[in-house]
């Protein structure tokens, strides 16, 4: 069964581009246009990877991440944060605090994102294989 990726971004073109590339790579992709919709999608069908934008209506990316991490079963969900804020956000600190897989600056490369997700899932399955 193909792995599920949830994309949260209020820019339809961003999600569309990422979805195209990820689908090509064999992922099952779901998109949400804000944090609230993203949270609902996570509860509905547990994704294997979460990719979220930072600035979104309703609930922003950081609020969504905080909510995800507050749930024990989602503690190990690989999360990628997309941001157009650049230096305004402390990348290293955020990575450490929320256990983010990576913080990707916008504009980002969909190919790069696919590579990151591949790696994350490979690491996860390797960790699961080791007793």
């Amino acid at each position, binding site marked *: 069964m193909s792995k599920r990726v949830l994309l949260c971004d209020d820019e339809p073109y961003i999600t569309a581009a990422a979805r195209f590339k990820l689908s*090509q790579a064999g992922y099952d992709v779901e998109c949400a246009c804000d944090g609230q919709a993203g949270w609902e999608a996570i509860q509905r069908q547990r994704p294997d990877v979460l990719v979220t934008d930072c600035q979104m*209506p309703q609930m922003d990316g950081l609020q969504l991440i905080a909510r995800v991490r507050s749930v024990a079963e989602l503690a190990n969900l690989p999360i990628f944060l997309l941001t157009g804020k650049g230096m305004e956000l402390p990348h290293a600190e955020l990575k450490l605090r929320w256990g983010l897989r990576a913080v990707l600056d916008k504009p980002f490369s*969909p190919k790069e994102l696919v590579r990151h997700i591949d790696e994350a899932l490979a690491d996860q399955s390797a960790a699961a294989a080791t007793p």
Partner: protein
Amino acid sequence: MSPARFDTIVAVGGLVLASACTVAYLAGWGLGEESISSRAGLLAGSALLSAALLSLVLCRMNRNAQLAKRFLDTICEASDANHQVAARDALAALDAGSSWRPLLKRIERTLADRQSRLTDSETTRAAIEVRCRRALADQQRMSDIISSIPEPILVVDGYDDILLSNRSANELLGLDGMQAGRRALDQIERCQRLIALVGELRRYPSHMIRTESIELEDLRGTRRWYNVSVSALAAPRADDPTGVDPSGGVVVVFRDTTALRKVQKQHAEFVSSASHEMKAPLSGIKAYVELLADATDDATREEFVNVINGQAERLHRLVENLLNIARVEAGVVKVSKHAQPLNDILAEAVRVVQPSAELKQIAIAYEPSPLYLGVLVDRDLMLQAAINLLSNSIKYTRPSGKVTVSSRLVGDNVQFDVEDTGVGLSEEDCVKIFDKFYRVAKDKEMAPGTGLGLPLAKYLVEDVHGGRLSVTSKLGVGSRFTITLPMVARGSTLVAAAAHV
């Protein structure tokens, strides 16, 4: 001949005459044996003559004595300024050569001398008084000037006593509440940092001025930022007159920088917001360019190219908006007005924003008036204003909402509305949304924006075209933006065009 000598001669003459008569009578010389009665008559006549002469002299002497007495009386009673007049009158009245005259002359000279000395000292006193008054007025003016300076100012002497403080300083630092008597720097509780600053200035005298930004609460309890400068009072040094004594007093000036900070913050937020806004289409372009490189079939490739084109268009519009607001700020907007139908401009605006509305599944209802609705406008600028209103409505309307554009004739004016079923605005926000950079707090979460679209639209409609842009709104129901422009007749197209050539 002097009157005194005349008196003496008259008196002596009288006496000699009387003596001669007496001798003549006693000797009986020249009269022989004439009658006793004629001798007695001669004697009596000469005695009478002598008495008359003597009484004349006495009368004159008495008159002079009385004049002198009156003069001395006047001197005793009269005011200073009248002394000389009295003396002059008395001297004029006194017979020349009277024995009183030299004495009175001396008195007059002495008085004149006193009078002139008195006048001198009076002049000096008046001059001093004038200088005193001027100094007092100067001091009052200085104090008034310092008091009316809106910036709080404080002057502290070398012993930390507060020498001077203006009204604003009293209010800001709570000096009015201090006990009467000694007002000292260390009694200021509201600004401990100030005491430290003054101390630092004294410790490091090579720095004649120290400046620091300090946050203080004002009278109304609002926290404000002040740029506080503490400089040494320019008192010359005892050992080196060219230097300044740092152990002397200091002058403290508070400059309110709250507004400046706010502007700086707004500016930083604006740059951040603008670049974030630009990154969105840029991300789209970059991502799709990457996809385009990998695209296999023509249909997909065309789709990608369209997206890239759309995003480039969006980026272009944003840059255009930024540029326009910059032009507005600099006051260099080129305007070329032509009479044209408003509906054409509205239709074009609707066409431009249609794709972004479709993306959010927002329906745009276009309900133009069937009338011609001529307006004298710069097409590009009015189109920009209409697009800004439409984009704004689309931004703040949730998916599956509706935006209606309609136009009509109202009296001599042409009016068009952009009405949405969006989040709506509070009464307060209805006024503020036309302020540059203002963004409704909760809406910041809803959509990114520069806070420039509506202020620009208002400027374009009102300042450039003499129209009116207003808004009515209800929270949670929607907003209606209305633009009113003066109508021009269809025939005036030619006139207006000709006027422009």
